[in-house]
């Protein structure tokens, strides 16, 4: 009880603490570095990368909803090569894990990125499978067990870094999807990505987002996210990174108890640039209060009511 050890090891990715900045809410770390010491953050999942630069969607790209927000950034990013040449060096100044979050239109694009990134100085690759597969009727890769198995197994062949598959929550059975990703070779799973939503400006009679629909994140989604982490934990053996509405250490502990080995903080990082630090401090306090020495001791320690 005297020593609280915050380190975690997720499929070989060593984190100094279990709190990772979620993709798309932390850029490439530069902006947040004005407000927080990046050395204190377990890891950073960078803004979703694509093979070629992307302009993203028209604005407005954000709408506030009750205890949540919708976004439709549409993966604006400078491309994976720009990232490697111009951003990794900045991030490597800090002792924090670098996770490259990747997205694409086709499995080939994902594979090519995995290939390129496997030679880069990063710690892991996170597969964003919530994107439409343009060769399969624009159904998201992660919407079916077959789809996620296909992309995971193919990327696996090109990926020489730990491979995290990030699940979309817009599915009937998250455990079937998770099992398919595990079987296809994922080293870890992260969940949840955003829930598909819409907000309407009733005066203009138009959706607020120029893209009409967007992804829901923030506190509102937490109960859905915790439930999914709990279901997935009972299904797979690989480690889980939990997220969805985490703003405090107590929120994070819910995910750890439900089965997560680490957590990601997204929307909260937009509102409070130092959110990751606060979440981490909250986890540490909880551990001290309950006499947990290691984070792994909390993982999955939820007792079910009978």
């Amino acid at each position, binding site marked *: 009880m005297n020593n609280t050890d915050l380190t975690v090891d997720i499929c070989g990715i060593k984190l100094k603490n279990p709190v990772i900045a979620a993709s798309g*809410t932390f*850029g490439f770390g530069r902006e947040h570095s004005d407000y927080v010491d990046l050395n204190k953050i377990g890891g950073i999942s960078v803004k979703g990368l694509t093979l070629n630069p992307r302009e993203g969607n028209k604005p407005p*790209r954000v709408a506030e909803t009750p205890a949540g927000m919708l976004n439709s950034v549409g993966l604006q990013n400078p491309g994976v090569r720009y990232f490697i040449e111009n951003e990794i060096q900045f991030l490597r100044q800090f002792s924090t894990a670098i996770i490259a979050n990747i997205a694409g239109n086709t499995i080939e694009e994902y594979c090519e990125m995995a290939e390129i990134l496997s030679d880069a100085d990063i710690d892991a690759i996170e597969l964003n499978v919530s994107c439409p597969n343009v060769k399969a009727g624009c159904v998201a890769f992660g919407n079916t067990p077959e789809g996620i198995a296909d992309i995971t197994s193919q990327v696996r062949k090109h990926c020489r870094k730990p491979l995290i598959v990030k699940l979309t929550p817009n599915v009937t059975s998250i455990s079937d999807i998770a099992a398919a990703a595990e079987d296809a070779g994922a080293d870890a799973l992260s969940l949840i990505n955003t829930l598909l939503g819409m907000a309407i400006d009733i005066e203009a009679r138009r959706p607020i987002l120029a893209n009409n629909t967007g992804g829901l994140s923030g506190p509102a989604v937490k109960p859905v996210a915790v439930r999914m982490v709990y279901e997935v934990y009972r299904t797979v053996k690989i480690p889980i990174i939990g997220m969805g509405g985490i703003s405090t250490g107590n929120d994070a502990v819910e995910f750890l108890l439900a089965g997560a080995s680490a957590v990601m903080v997204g*929307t909260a990082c937009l509102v409070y640039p130092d959110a990751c630090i606060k979440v981490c401090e909250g986890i540490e306090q909880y551990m001290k209060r309950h006499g947990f020495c290691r984070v792994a001791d909390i993982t999955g320690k939820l007792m079910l009511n009978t």
Partner: protein
Amino acid sequence: MSKLLKEVITRVERATDSIFRITVASEYISANAAPGQFVNIKCCDGAQALLRRPISICSVDRSKGEFDLYFQVKGAGTEILAGKKRGDTLDILGPLGRGFDLDIGYRRIAAVGGGIGIFPLLFLLDESKAVVKRSYLGFRSSGQVLLLEEFGERSTSLETATEDGSFGSKGFVTDLLERDIISEEFDMIYACGPYPMLRKISEIAGKHGARCQISMEQRMGCGFGACLTCACMTYTDDGSRHYVRVCSDGPVFNSEDVVFE
């Protein structure tokens, strides 16, 4: 550099029916803010009004270490703000964004504001070293008119327009600018206001080859450059188009760089 600050409110005042003025004591903001910059406010703790609200810095009193915000009550966030009292703390991130370029060489300037877009221009007029400062303010109707005295004191001339003619001249503030733009030979036009007004001003400036800086608005996720939600389409040097961030690449842009769609 901007900071995450908890500052004390020293005054809350109702300026019009729906517009409030809040004075905040902040050594840091008042020492470091430039005209055209804004602060991003967490209106209350917790998940209600989840995102911060961007509000322009309207004026700064460096000697007192205070600055003023003027804001219109629209939805949940500004309503909570309007309920703040003297002595309450305000959770702000700022000063944020790239403000107006106040080159010492600009001797004749125009400040064109519409509605809640007039606020950052007050700070601009304060800091500008120009010799001629012509202010043009537009409002929907007489009930919305405010800050005339403050603008008057800081300008060489001040004209107002209301859409319904209930105060000042009838019509748009852009009409006034268009009338004067040739004769006045402004070194720089500064503008802030609703999108259609800015588009019109860009057109006018473009037509007459006048230089013009405009302050853009966009819905924001973070306000400090991290989330890419506040996109604004701009022309790059090679003529291609590219989304940049209103919050950190702007909110002030050269009008010729902005792609109005």
